[in-house]
């Protein structure tokens, strides 16, 4: 991160995609929370509005995910997400150590950003987990909740809707936590706003 030369890291399409996703997910979280915890005393959002917002944003983010999924299948962008099991743990620990004390001792980042390596290992694998596990789960359960008639009504007195909804909520919460960490880690740039600027103008 010390190098001064600028890197055009995020092309326009990616920034638009990222922006749509970010906005969509924030809307989903806010409307989701107000649906899960509605109250007569305090309302962030009117329940009916929250349902509508959640549905619309959900559909948009699902399409945006589909784009991501297909894009990563057919374009070079996939290389940033390729899983390399060899030495995985070591790399993760190395990066974690950097976050925990390396960065306070002015050590070099162990995996500096380059054109070949957009993400450090922790970043990469958390993205992989979120994009290839959490998001698909939340989309599938979300579609099921949008069309509850689709869910198998009852398997052995197991209500499909209940279990789907609890899963949907739990994964939603985990994605919320991911978002918090994502934002925080993004603020580790020097100066703190640097990374936020670069996802908007593309230059790192």
């Amino acid at each position: 991160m010390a190098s001064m030369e600028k890197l055009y890291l995020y092309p326009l399409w990616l920034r638009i995609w990222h922006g749509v996703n970010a906005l969509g997910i924030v809307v989903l979280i806010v409307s989701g929370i107000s649906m899960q915890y509605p109250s007569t005393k305090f309302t962030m959002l009117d329940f009916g509005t929250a349902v509508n917002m959640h549905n619309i944003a959900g559909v948009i983010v699902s399409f945006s995910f589909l784009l991501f999924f297909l894009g990563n299948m057919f374009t070079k962008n996939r290389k940033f997400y390729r899983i390399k099991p060899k030495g995985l743990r070591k790399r993760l620990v190395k990066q974690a150590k950097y976050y925990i004390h390396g960065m306070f001792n002015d050590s070099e980042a162990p995996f500096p950003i380059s054109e070949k390596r957009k993400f450090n290992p922790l970043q990469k694998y958390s993205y992989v987990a979120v994009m290839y596990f959490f998001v698909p789960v939340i989309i599938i359960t979300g579609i099921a909740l949008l069309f509850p008639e689709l869910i198998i009504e009852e398997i052995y007195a197991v209500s499909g809707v209940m279990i789907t909804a609890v899963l949907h909520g739990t994964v939603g919460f985990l994605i919320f936590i991911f978002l918090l960490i994502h934002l925080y880690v993004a603020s580790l740039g020097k100066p703190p706003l640097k990374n936020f600027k670069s996802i908007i103008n593309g230059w790192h």
Partner: protein
Amino acid sequence: MFSQIRKLVIIFILGFVCLQVQSQTIASENRQCLKCHTSQTFTIYNEWTELNEKRLMNPFYILDTVQLKTGVHHTFKCIDCHSYEYETYPHNGELKLEPLMTCIDCHGGDDTYASFQFDRIEEEFQKSIHYEISEDRFTCSKCHNQHYYKATARSSNSIKEIVEYSNNMCLSCHNSMIEYQLMSENTNPQLVQVHEWLPNQELHFEHVRCIECHTVVEDSLMVSHNIHGKTLATKNCIECHSTNSLLQSSLYKYQNISSRSGEGAIKNILSNQHYVIGTYQTQSLQYMFLIILIGTIAGMVVHTIFRIIKK
């Protein structure tokens, strides 16, 4: 000795025959009526033409034997309620005007059925919009068919069944121009349009009863009977979609259903037949979420402090 055995055998056979005859008389009495009243056609012997003639049955007078058998009054003979004169056909035309007993005529003030609170139900019903518009012409039987009625809310343990049973009472009239216009000069409003503001309408109508929104819940009554005009109906989603959902004190309060709750969180998630967004919070999950959230934020705060110190 031998004669004694013979006597016993005879008594036994006689008793058996008697029993047989008795159970047959009950059945056969109704069966005679049902022979005509369960099929689309019936046959009568025309004494003038001396021919057996096959005729069409009025479709509204065809009864469903399955529902008859499961109804609360299944032990009744038809002529316990209807005049015995119906035993002959053609039925006497005067009989059309025969006043029939209402639920209250038989059940009113009867302690045997105190738990059903018939009299209070009548009181409530008389405050309702239906009574307002047509008074005594709107009888209990408009909703409760005396042939088939069963107290689903207290006997069934499936919410869906209770809801379906109850809503069909309303729909049998509100979705049927013929029935509706027996009571009103107007045409029946299309329910799908009237409730357009409600998302997932079909799902809602399968999972909540019309009376959930159209009556004020009476805690001491199993089923509120005071149906209000449309201006007083519940339109506020939060009334149901919140932890103190009105459904807890109406649809979900029934013993047969609530007895299954309180079995622990996991079991509850697995065995619940209904999931209403906003009403359900699994305690253990909530705590886990809270701990994770606090942990995450604490981690960030500590990290930030170090960043500031080490700058």
